């Protein structure tokens, strides 16, 4: 079956991802009179952060008013320019085929088609860096982001009694949302040490609104009587067929649990958040140059305006380095300005003038996040949490012992690690375990260059039936 068998649609600019970066890029283009196509695999626009309740008639009184206003504002802004924005939801990008900018799409999980885009703006967002620990594959262990989506978009409690572990501001946000949703929050354990926050207080103070939001969350948890501890983290989850108990302990400087002070908490939901990494599967398949991202992932090499190593392909938002939704909005606008300049629709001087305030705001969010990085950066003790028989690759059941044995036998790059153990070879294509594989290899070998785990086309499952019916359609039968 040749590529020509499939119907193709020529489009000037396709934006991948309808989160804050993608939508703001589309709006910026629309303001300049440029039509764009925005593709997102989810049934609703907004990205994980601004998707909003999925069911009709929801009151969502457990959610913060400021967040609800932001969801509405974004929705209204996109609606205002609706005639310029061709929004295609429930549409997954499977990857490039036959030329870099011809993308294979799968709509509603079954309808296959392709689009040929003159230019692409990738706004694929981020995913959570997973720290494996004994019991992390038990039902009831979820990423903080996943638990939040159930509360914010599903309006359903993913558990009744929750423990939150890991690091970063999302822990506070999620703990508050869980409490407001009626979940018994049994404790919030932040691995970072308070002293590392205090040391960076001057950078944090530069971004007052974000700092104020953070302090509001902390005082909410205090008023609710929720146990919040700094310098503490997860040891293991235990239970028969699901999480029933969570063991937490104080962490030392290297984030090794001090077991003599460990405590056990009864819970049916363990939400984990150890950092976010750019979602690079598509940018990797497109052959963009990538570089290391904090030793736990990869990120495409980009300029301040989102230009990449390939002309005509831009990357914006968390997909280029994780700085949060507000930075992503500015990055989306900047990538749109780069597009407008590169296609001769806007003069370099005008673009520069428009970009200045965007860059200034973007920089303030970047500085705020960087201040958290010293506090939240993964310490190497965390990598020793899994026991030898703990599963690292959830798809292929590859254990820590198998990973370490391969490294002991001379494996010094992540591709060889994948081939010798099957880690990263399963259904998720290594999106969940690759972060640990990069970090483990780097820690064991004492060097940062351990190669890149390559994703494969198609990026999501596609049935043969979908391909066959698409090619018949293309032949006009």
């Amino acid at each position: 079956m040749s590529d020509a068998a499939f119907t193709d649609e020529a489009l000037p600019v396709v934006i991948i991802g309808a989160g804050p970066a993608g939508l703001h890029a589309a709006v910026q283009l629309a303001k300049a009179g440029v039509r764009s196509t925005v593709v997102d695999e989810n049934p609703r626009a907004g990205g994980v952060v601004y998707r909003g309740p999925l069911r009709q008639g929801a009151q969502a009184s457990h959610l913060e008013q400021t967040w609800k206003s932001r969801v509405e504002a974004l929705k209204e802004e996109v609606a205002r320019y609706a005639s310029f924005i061709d929004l295609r939801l429930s549409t997954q990008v499977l990857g490039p085929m036959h030329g870099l900018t011809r993308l294979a799409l799968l709509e509603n999980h079954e309808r296959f088609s392709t689009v040929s885009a003159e230019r692409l703006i990738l706004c694929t967002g981020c995913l959570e860096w997973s720290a494996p620990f004994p019991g992390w594959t038990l039902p009831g262990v979820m990423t903080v982001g996943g638990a939040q989506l159930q509360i914010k978009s599903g309006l359903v409690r993913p558990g009744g009694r929750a423990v939150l572990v890991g690091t970063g501001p999302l822990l506070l946000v999620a703990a508050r949302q869980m409490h407001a949703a009626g979940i018994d929050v049994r404790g919030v354990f932040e691995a970072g040490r308070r002293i590392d926050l205090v040391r960076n207080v001057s950078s944090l103070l530069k971004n007052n609104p974000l700092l104020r939001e953070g302090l509001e969350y902390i005082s909410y948890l205090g008023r609710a009587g929720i146990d919040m501890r700094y310098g503490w983290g997860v040891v293991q989850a235990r239970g028969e067929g699901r999480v029933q108990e969570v063991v937490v302990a104080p962490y030392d400087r290297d984030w090794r649990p001090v077991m003599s002070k460990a405590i056990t908490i009864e819970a049916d939901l363990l939400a984990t958040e150890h950092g976010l990494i750019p979602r690079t599967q598509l940018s990797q398949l497109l052959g963009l140059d990538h570089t290391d991202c904090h030793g736990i992932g990869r990120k495409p090499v980009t300029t301040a305006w989102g230009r990449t190593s390939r002309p005509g392909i831009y990357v914006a938002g968390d997909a280029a380095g994780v700085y949060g939704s507000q930075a992503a909005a500015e990055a989306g606008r900047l990538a749109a300005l780069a597009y407008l300049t590169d296609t001769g629709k806007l003069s370099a001087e005008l673009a520069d003038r428009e970009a200045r305030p965007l860059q200034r705001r973007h920089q303030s969010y970047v500085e705020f996040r960087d201040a958290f990085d010293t506090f939240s950066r993964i310490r190497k003790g965390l990598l020793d949490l899994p026991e030898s028989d703990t599963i690292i690759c959830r798809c292929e059941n590859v254990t820590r012992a198998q990973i370490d044995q391969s490294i002991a036998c001379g494996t010094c790059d992540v591709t060889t690690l994948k081939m010798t153990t099957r880690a990263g070879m399963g259904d998720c294509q290594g999106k969940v375990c690759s972060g640990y594989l990069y970090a483990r290899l780097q820690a064991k070998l004492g060097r940062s260059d351990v190669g890149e785990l390559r994703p494969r086309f198609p990026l999501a499952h596609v049935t043969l039936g979908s391909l066959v019916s698409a090619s018949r359609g293309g032949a006009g039968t």
Partner: protein
Amino acid sequence: MRRQNDIEPLTGDVVTVNVDGVEITCAAGETVLTALLAHGQLAIARNDHGHLTSAYCGMGVCYCCVVKIDDVDKRRACQLIVRDGMRVITQHNNHHLAIGGDK
């Protein structure tokens, strides 16, 4: 099975979905994963090695909530919206069954 984990009562349209032979009530617009969690069902999938899993990332990344929907295997419950009359089979993995399973 009854809904037990709703944060607020259902007020909009509802649809009926068949899960492992049992009819359940779902809010129109919600995902299959949300419907399962609303009913307290946490045991959702088996990976290719027969290992029991539940939603881990909840946002389409990890494939730990794949179920059989209307005879198609390995559909991510977190990414699919419920439809009236939909048939969902949980904890089913054809690959695992075909190779006999190692765990």
